[in-house]
């Protein structure tokens, strides 16, 4: 972090100031456009809807990032700093309880009408009132317009993470008039009264560089260049997103029938030639937890057992399984986000230590079930493979682990109910800000799933509360590090790895980057 980042967000604003005037500054990278170019991207679809108000799936983020503009966004793979999109700048006021966004007057929807503060307010209110998957993103925010080009968001509690939430394409801004005409509403009862989703799955009503041409959740999504885009001309006249399994994606890109494959694992790209392979750590983390509720297990609540667990996992072997590009996650916050612990603080594998802690625990050779969702793949790593490897390693320590694979629905139920003694799970970021990881605090969402209540660890609960209210980049970095050290020392979690985010593309592509949020940034590609 640079010096001038005194107020943290002030840095963002000065960065914003630099690009003001360059229309759509964030995506200025590629201006040269050749007519009639088609971009084919293969993705194993996780797609439900193109309606930003309902969208909360990886493929949906890729699509909506192309169709809709948000107030602020990220440039390329840098998630530590937001850059302007519809808002040229914003101010953080009142200890992060109030944000003021200044809209770019040049912004136009695909029908040529200007993007106004009314559209923004309407879209964001609709998002909240739809009570869908992404509604929590802006829960508790009071959203209002103050003049045609100013939006004010206020909340009762400080929300320093808000700027990092807003790049989520779910907060994409819709053309109020058009969507209303097709049944959209932002009223409090929108969850039952809004009928616009079907229409938004056939058409788009945004201000992004592309418009929706056809949409299927199972076969393909086709987008075409928005002829009235207010920023630099999109690089492709057509973007086709196809639903293809990872194994086939590999063959496709090798045969050159597509331009980009986004779901390959590091193992699958090993030895591939004639293509560009871009890797980076994914922001998804795998972790083990040991339930703290004595009613669930007498073993996992044992402090020495937990230490044996922490030292008994061979992280190097897990990384080998995940392939090159994967990294061990030192705390619950992924290494690519603000607030991450330095790699030097990651737990170290030490079999002897693990065995001695297990001996000290007085549990002998405890028998345990390791529960995990089966058939789920995160960045090419399946829970099944990871669990099998962990089982083998803990067996060496002297723990008798039986694998308990469950379908995601069943597993999620026992997980939510806090009934799993030992669980292997993953957390994907809802938004790239450390505040998303306060769910791991005692008494919070994930904490309770691990049977860990606020009264079990009041000091950490207090620390988490304080972290949620702290503003300023440096101060946040410090307090989130402290929070994670506390979790690592006293918490029920063993953070394992962040798999590698891999993207493979043909040689001719420019600005190809692996993007942990929306696979590839359509706005940057050339």
């Amino acid at each position, binding site marked *: 972090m640079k010096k001038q980042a005194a107020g943290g967000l002030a840095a963002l604003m000065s960065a914003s100031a630099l690009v003001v005037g360059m229309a759509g500054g964030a995506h200025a990278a590629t201006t040269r456009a050749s007519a009639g170019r*088609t971009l*084919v991207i293969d993705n194993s679809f996780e797609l*439900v*809807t193109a309606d930003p108000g*309902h969208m*909360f799936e990886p493929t949906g983020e890729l699509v909506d990032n192309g169709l809709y503009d948000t107030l602020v966004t990220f440039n390329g793979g840098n998630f530590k700093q937001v850059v302007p999109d519809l808002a040229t700048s914003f101010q953080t006021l009142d200890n992060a309880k109030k944000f003021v966004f200044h809209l770019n007057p040049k912004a136009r929807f695909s029908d040529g009408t200007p993007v106004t503060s009314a559209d923004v307010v309407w879209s964001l209110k609709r998002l909240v009132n739809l*009570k*869908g*998957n*992404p*509604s*929590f993103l802006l*829960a508790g925010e009071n959203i209002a317009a103050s003049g045609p080009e100013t939006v004010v968001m206020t909340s009762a509690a400080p929300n320093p993470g808000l700027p990092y939430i807003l790049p989520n394409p779910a907060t994409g801004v819709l053309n109020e008039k058009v969507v209303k005409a097709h049944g959209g509403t932002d009223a409090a009862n929108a*969850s*039952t009264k809004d009928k616009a*989703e*079907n229409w938004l*799955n056939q058409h788009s009503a945004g201000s992004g560089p592309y418009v929706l041409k*056809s949409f*299927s*959740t*199972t*076969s*393909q999504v*086709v987008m075409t260049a928005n002829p009235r885009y207010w920023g630099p001309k999109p690089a492709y006249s*057509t973007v*086709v997103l*196809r*639903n*293809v*399994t990872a194994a*086939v994606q590999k*063959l*496709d890109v*090798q*045969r050159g*029938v*597509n331009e980009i494959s986004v779901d390959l694992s590091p193992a699958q790209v090993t030895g591939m030639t004639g293509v560009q392979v871009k890797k980076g750590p994914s922001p998804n983390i795998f972790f083990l937890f040991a339930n703290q509720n004595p009613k669930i297990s007498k073993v996992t609540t044992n402090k020495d057992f937990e230490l044996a667990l922490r030292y008994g996992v061979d992280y190097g072997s897990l990384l080998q399984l995940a392939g090159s590009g994967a990294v061990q996650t030192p705390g619950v916050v992924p290494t690519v986000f603000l607030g991450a612990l330095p790699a030097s603080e990651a737990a170290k594998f030490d079999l002897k230590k693990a065995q001695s802690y297990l001996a000290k625990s007085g549990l002998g050779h405890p028998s345990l079930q390791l529960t995990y969702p089966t*058939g789920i793949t995160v960045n090419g790593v399946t829970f099944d493979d990871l669990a099998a490897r962990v089982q083998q390693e803990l067996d060496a320590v002297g723990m008798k682990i039986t694998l308990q694979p469950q*379908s*995601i*629905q*069943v597993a*999620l*139920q026992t997980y*939510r109910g806090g009934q799993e003694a030992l669980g292997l799970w993953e*957390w994907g970021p*809802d938004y790239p800000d450390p505040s998303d990881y306060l*769910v791991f605090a005692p008494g919070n*969402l994930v904490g309770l799933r691990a049977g860990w209540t606020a009264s079990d660890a009041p000091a950490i609960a207090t620390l988490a509360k304080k972290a949620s209210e702290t503003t300023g980049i440096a101060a946040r970095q410090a307090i989130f590090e402290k929070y994670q050290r506390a979790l690592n020392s006293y918490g029920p979690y063993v953070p394992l790895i962040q798999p590698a985010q891999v993207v493979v593309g043909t040689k001719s592509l420019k600005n190809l980057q692996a993007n942990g949020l929306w696979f590839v940034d359509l706005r940057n590609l050339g």
Partner: protein
Amino acid sequence: MADAPPSSARRARRVTPAGLGRFLARRLGIGLVLVVGITLVAFILTHLVPGDPAAANLGQRALGDPAIVKAFNHEYGLDKPVVEQYFIYLWKLLHGNLGVSEQSHRAVITDLAQYVPATIELALFAIVVSIVIGVGLGVVAAVRRGKPVDTGLRIGSLLGVSMPTFWVALFVFYLFFFRLGWFPSGGRLNPGVSAPGHITGMYTVDALLHGQWSLFVDALDHLVMPGFVLGIFTVGTVLRFTRASVLEVINLDYVRAARAKGLSEWTVVRRHVMRPALLPIATVAGLAFGSLLSGTVLVENIYSWPGIGEYAYLSAVNLDLPAIMGVSIVVAIIYIVINLLVDLLYSILDPRIELR
């Protein structure tokens, strides 16, 4: 479906319109009862589910918010007693409303309208493949019965029904797409190509009806690999049926007489054996069509074919109750209709058969 003693025990007159009407009424009645039975079975099955549809369709954060879970359960009627849910379902079904899919957020009927034609197209292609190959080879096997060719074909047909569909699909895919590059990897059309205007929903047929030749070639190109793989598994069955039914006729008196006239064996087969032998083939083809619908689940999965098999799979995995119910009902109706058609066809081809 019917449970009569073998038909040869009865001798029947020609099909009369009144008889046909009675037959259709009876069969449609049975079909209706079956469909209601299937809604019940599907409903019980989907409510045995230990998982929670909300958990399957909401994100982790949304699940933490009781208001969102409540809104979800309310939207899909999951907050009502199970029995009430069933009758609400039946009531809506009567109005042609199959509910809204939890995974696609669309009306199930809209989803089905899109996926069913894709699968029918695939299954029709496969059935044509298996009839052309199966009947041809079956006649050869019958004429050359007992010879090495016959034995070879017998082994071949057993091999055909013994191969795991998914494994063959992978192998064919690897060879003909990746190694040889003869066919596209999956989907129904090349990327970015728009589907022909909707008439039947079968792209090859629609493209022809619109006179879009290149689109037809594109669609056919995508159909070949999955179609052949699917067809392989019925070739063996059709072959053996053909062989058996040709053998039944080949030594009847009139055929012997024809042969005595000095006609060559192949001519005899062509003129006198094929027509009666086609009867059972029609039946097996009809029924094979039904079993092809099973095969599609595995084949569509591998060839990214957006059909009802893949939809059934995804609905089952995502506990998308309305979709599972919809698929079950539609597939059962297809089955019942095909059985009916087979029986009708049969009575037309062979007047001795009485419709019951």
